[in-house]
Structure formats: structure tokens, C-alpha cells
């Protein structure tokens, strides 16, 4: 009798484990689908900003510092590399590597944000004198709209990574179950993806308008 009860308990536990795993797999698939639907909805927003740029500027662009554009783009690209390392480290349970890579991403994100605020927006003229204003002309309006919306996403990405880093410290994730980290990582790569189109649209396409 005791043996039969024990074996029944074992079977129930195994069934619960299996059901739990299936539940997580289903939730994970739905979470991923939800995240990608969110990305598609965001693409309409960023696409509208790009359409505005091409409609208003045509084959021209504002005179922007090319070196600033190349540096902030490189910083964001590096942050994508460190986020990839953080995500992969979490997948393999290398939590120390995850921690260092997550902080590297947050710092690089902050450097990118400061680069935009100081050099593109010229909010600190004592450091760098900017010549565009959001109300000045069509160039300033579009530059501020595009970089502003993107910078907002960079800031929210930094907050998201910080929350994931804190949860990881509290052992909230395992190599098998770390959707939160994966979500933060793909969100960050999405922010990079948007800049892949914004960089040429703002800095490279068209002739500079003096």
C-alpha cells in the first residue's frame, strides 16, 4: 500500500512538473508573440516619423556634425553587443558575466542619451553650441521629434534593464526561465534597430541645407 501511494505521489509530481513546463512554454510563446505585436505597433510610430522626414526634407538634410552621428551610432552598436552578451550569459547561467554586461549596456545607453542631449539638441551650450531648435524650422522640428522619441525609448530601455538586473540579483531567473531578461534584451535591440534607419535618415541621406 505504502509503495503504491509513493508511486502515485511520484506520478502526480511528475505530471505537475510536466504541466508546469508546458504552462511556461505556452506563456513564453504568448509573451514573445505579444512583444512582437508591440514592436509592430511601434514600427508605425517610427515609420510615421521617417515618412515625415522624407516628406518635409526631401533630398536635403540639416547640417549636423557627422562625427557626433558616427560616435553615438557606434556607442549604440556597442551597447547592442553588451546586451547580447548579457542575454547569452543568462541563458548559460553565467550571472557574473550577465551583471557586468547589463551594467555596460546601461552605461553605454546613458552615454548615447547624453550624446543626443548635449550634441544633437545643444541643451548645454557651454559644452556644445547647437543650432537647431524644435520650433525653428522643419529641420529642427523633425530632428527633435525623431531623436526625442528615440531617446525616450533608450531611457525606458535603461530602466527595464536595471529592473531585470535587480530581479536577477534576487535569483528571480534561471537559465531555463528568464523571459524578463530576454524581453529586455530584444527591446534594447529594437531600439538599436530603429536607430539603424534613423541614422542615415538624419545624418547621411540628401545634401546638407546651409
Amino acid at each position: 500500500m505504502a509503495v503504491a501511494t509513493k508511486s502515485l505521489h511520484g506520478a502526480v509530481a511528475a505530471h505537475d512538473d510536466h504541466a508546469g513546463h508546458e504552462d511556461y512554454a505556452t506563456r513564453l510563446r504568448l509573451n514573445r508573440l505579444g512583444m512582437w505585436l508591440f514592436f509592430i505597433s511601434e514600427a508605425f510610430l517610427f515609420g510615421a516619423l521617417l515618412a515625415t522626414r522624407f516628406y518635409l526634407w526631401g533630398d536635403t538634410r540639416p547640417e549636423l556634425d557627422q562625427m557626433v552621428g558616427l560616435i553615438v551610432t557606434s556607442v549604440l552598436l556597442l551597447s547592442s553587443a553588451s546586451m547580447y552578451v548579457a542575454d547569452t550569459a543568462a541563458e548559460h547561467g553565467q550571472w557574473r558575466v550577465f551583471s557586468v554586461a547589463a551594467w555596460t549596456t546601461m552605461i553605454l545607453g546613458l552615454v548615447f542619451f547624453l550624446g543626443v542631449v548635449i550634441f544633437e539638441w545643444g541643451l548645454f551650450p557651454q559644452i556644445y553650441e547647437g543650432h537647431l531648435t524644435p520650433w525653428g524650422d522643419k529641420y529642427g522640428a523633425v530632428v527633435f521629434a525623431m531623436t526625442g522619441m528615440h531617446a525616450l525609448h533608450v531611457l525606458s530601455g535603461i530602466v527595464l534593464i536595471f529592473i531585470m538586473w535587480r530581479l536577477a540579483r534576487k535569483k528571480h531567473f534561471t537559465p531555463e526561465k528568464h523571459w524578463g531578461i530576454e524581453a529586455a534584451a530584444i527591446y534594447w535591440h529594437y531600439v538599436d534597430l530603429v536607430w539603424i534607419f534613423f541614422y542615415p535618415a538624419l545624418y547621411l541621406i540628401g545634401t546638407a541645407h546651409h
Partner: protein
Amino acid sequence: MGHYSTGIIIILVLAALTVVEFYVALATHSAVFLLLIAALKAILVIWFFMHVKRLWSAEGGH
């Protein structure tokens, strides 16, 4: 290092494409070339960093 090798290769390709983009812009202001390079970079990011293929993964695992 093995776990990270794909990411490192992709980052190097993305960096090289960014440099190409910069010099193409200096040589020509053609939007078509620049948007094609941007599209290529976007595909690499979506496929390798955003793991779009996991959407169809039957296991749903990482």
C-alpha cells in the same frame, strides 16, 4: 567564448556596414544605397539578436 562567437561576428559585420554606410554617404547621397545597407543591418539584428525564429519554436524554450 564559444557561446558569444555568433554575436561577436554579427557586431563586427554591423560595424563594417556602418563604416561602409558612412563612406557611401560621402561619395553619393543616394537614399537607395543607404536604405539597402540599413535594411541589411536590420535583418541581421532581427535574426541574430532579436531571435525572431524563436516565435516559431515548438518548444518555446530559450
